[in-house]
């Protein structure tokens, strides 16, 4: 290979990279928490709600799952101002990530809810548990335990999808990589370093989900 590697030049841009990592983590944290909340609400609506609510949530899920994330992002950032709603790039990025994850997690969590054995609910009713108590302890938490690996995978996908938010000038990690590459043209080194950082972040995020599963959902630490 005739290429001359030079990683030392990247050290001078470490501030840009650190800011990018921080913003990626921030977008992921806010996007995932709100997205999962939307997902639980959507799944419960689709599973147990009245017909009109099921139709609305169904339309939302199909619209978001069948269109690209980038198109949704551009619609919110460049398109909404034409209707008077002007969002900054961070707000637009978070909104798009929440809307996107909300649709996918609705279906993932609904799969968990649908696989609840009817006998469980009947047993809970016979113990005189109230509706909300049944939903929380007997239906939701076991459902989340069942679909937790799938949900954590979707959240990792959302974290990697935050790279797309560089297109609207949100200064996360991919923006940092593009910025540094446009200054020193060391594309190989820059994108190799950011790939390694994304890999580390994804592994860390999965570990965090395992920890939450263990201590919040009382899953076994296998």
């Amino acid at each position, binding site marked *: 290979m005739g290429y001359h590697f030079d990683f030392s030049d990247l050290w001078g841009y470490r501030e840009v990279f650190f800011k990018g990592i921080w913003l990626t983590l921030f977008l992921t944290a806010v996007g995932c928490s709100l997205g999962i909340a939307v997902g639980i609400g959507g799944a419960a609506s689709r599973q147990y709600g009245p017909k009109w609510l099921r139709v609305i949530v169904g339309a939302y899920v199909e619209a978001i799952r069948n269109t690209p994330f980038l198109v949704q992002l*551009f619609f919110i*950032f*460049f398109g909404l*101002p034409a209707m008077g709603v*002007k969002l900054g790039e961070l707000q637009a990025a978070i909104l798009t990530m929440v809307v996107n994850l909300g649709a996918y997690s609705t279906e993932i969590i609904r799969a968990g809810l649908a696989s609840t054995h009817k006998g469980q609910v009947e047993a809970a009713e016979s113990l005189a548990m109230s509706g909300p108590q049944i939903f929380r302890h007997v239906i939701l938490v076991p459902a989340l335990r069942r679909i937790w690996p799938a949900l954590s995978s979707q959240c990792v996908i959302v974290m990697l999808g935050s790279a797309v938010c560089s297109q609207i000038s949100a200064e996360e990690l991919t923006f940092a990589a593009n*910025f540094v590459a*446009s*200054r020193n043209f060391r594309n190989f080194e820059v994108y190799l370093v950011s790939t390694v950082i994304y890999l580390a972040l994804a592994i860390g995020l999965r570990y965090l989900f395992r920890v939450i599963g263990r201590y919040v959902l009382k899953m076994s630490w296998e």
Partner: protein
Amino acid sequence: MKRRALFAAALALAALAQAPLAHADALADIKKAGVIKIAVPQDFPPFGSVGGDLKPVGYDIDTAALIAKEMGVKLELVPVTSANRIPYLTTKKVDLVISSLGKNPEREKVIDFSDAYAPFFNGVFGTADEKVAKVEDLAGKTIGVTRGAVEDLELSKVAPPTATIKRFEDNNATISAFLSGQVQLVATGNVVAAAIIAKNPPKKPETKFLIKNSPCYVGLNKGEAALLAAVNAAIAKTRQNGALNGVSQKWLGTALPATL
């Protein structure tokens, strides 16, 4: 023997005397042939592109037509690319190059330049209600720019620390940001600003100040003093009588600046 030597010497002298005269006057050749060959771009709107009827159209084509008219000769357009426009001139395939040509020391060694005929600059543009006249006024303001472009590099060097520079991936995203009102100021080339104006936005971008000025010049071969004078005279006359301003309005959407 002596006569043959004398005859050879006379012939050589005559040849030598002929040589500078034969090369010198491109202007005279043009006037005699009644046609001027001008190289124009075909891949760089609004300076030169191909219209619907496959005919070249653009700022440079209109300028070439004005110069040919002033010199009283017919115009022959020769489409060129950025790579071959100067070789076409130096090998005399064309008489003039009107192809958004910028002046720099390397080129000045090889060809001559006329006076400037078109503005080509990087600057900060903004809506009318933004009161910005120089780079210091950008303090506390948000400016959109295309990442990695010349404007990005220059602006990052001189912008005040409280200015927020939003970098977009390409010219189209920067234009979209301005048109959607996400940014009120953009740093870009005047050609891109012309593209924004062409979209007829509710708030048109006005030029606030220049970052880097590199106007367009007509290129000619070295040593053509008469042709250079004729071209400069044509440019001066069309500036004065407003014809060149009309070309600028048509293709760039703005009037010709007072100084180029």
